[in-house]
């Protein structure tokens, strides 16, 4: 039951994100969608990913997005047309994609689920430090490069 509640909130706010006129309200609905997504992770049984989703998406990325909205949109601006002329083709494209993916999904026989490890969080920590140590370091370098790049880009010289 609570899965369908979370999914409903998620899909409703996602639709609001792509259709609303006011970009700031879009950002608020995106925050709600990300919160619901985090709830879906908890419900699914992946609490670590849910916490990281809360921390990074809701805590960091959305703050950045709202800052960018504040910096780029003039409050006095009248609300212009926000969608281009491709609404109907885009709807058809998304619907056709959805149809083909769903039909292939329902024809696929998924293997029977295997029980998850007992302590998933400890397992993730161990795997990050042993098997995935190199990707972990590389991703930290990527983040550092992105941060320095962002600072260099917006610096006034």
């Amino acid at each position, binding site marked *: 039951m609570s899965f369908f509640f979370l999914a409903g909130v998620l899909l409703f706010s996602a639709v609001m*994100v792509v259709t609303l006129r006011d970009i700031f309200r879009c950002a608020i609905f995106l925050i709600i969608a990300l919160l619901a997504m985090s709830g879906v992770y908890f419900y699914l049984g*992946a609490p670590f990913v849910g916490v990281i989703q809360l921390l990074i998406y809701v805590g960091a990325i959305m703050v950045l997005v709202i800052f960018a909205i504040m910096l780029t949109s003039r409050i006095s601006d009248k609300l212009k047309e926000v969608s281009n002329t491709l609404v109907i083709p885009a709807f058809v494209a998304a619907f056709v994609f959805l149809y083909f993916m769903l039909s292939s*999904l329902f024809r696929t026989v998924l293997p029977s689920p295997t029980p998850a490890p007992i302590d998933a969080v400890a397992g993730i920590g161990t*795997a990050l430090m042993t098997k995935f140590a190199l990707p972990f370091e590389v991703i930290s370098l990527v983040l550092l490069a992105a941060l320095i790049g962002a600072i260099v880009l917006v610096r006034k010289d």
Partner: protein
Amino acid sequence: MRYIVLSLILFCIGLFGIITRRNAIAMLMSIELMLNAVNLNLVYFSVRGGDLTGQIFALFVIAVAAAEAAVGLAIIINVYRKFTHIDVERMTSLKW
């Protein structure tokens, strides 16, 4: 199964958004929706298959999304300084 359907619908909503939106920040937000849909797929199959690799990959995707958002928003702010708007349909300086 229902998680995959949810993730598919979410991905299609993001696809619709990125095609129709004209505001660059709104396009970026649609990309975030699509990345979330992909993440849900990864985590679902990870939990279902009893293998943690999918969840770790989802963490990497989240980190890359953070980097992408930082650089993308910096570029958008630069574009705003130059053109005083962020309407992607009116950024035609590279069009011949």
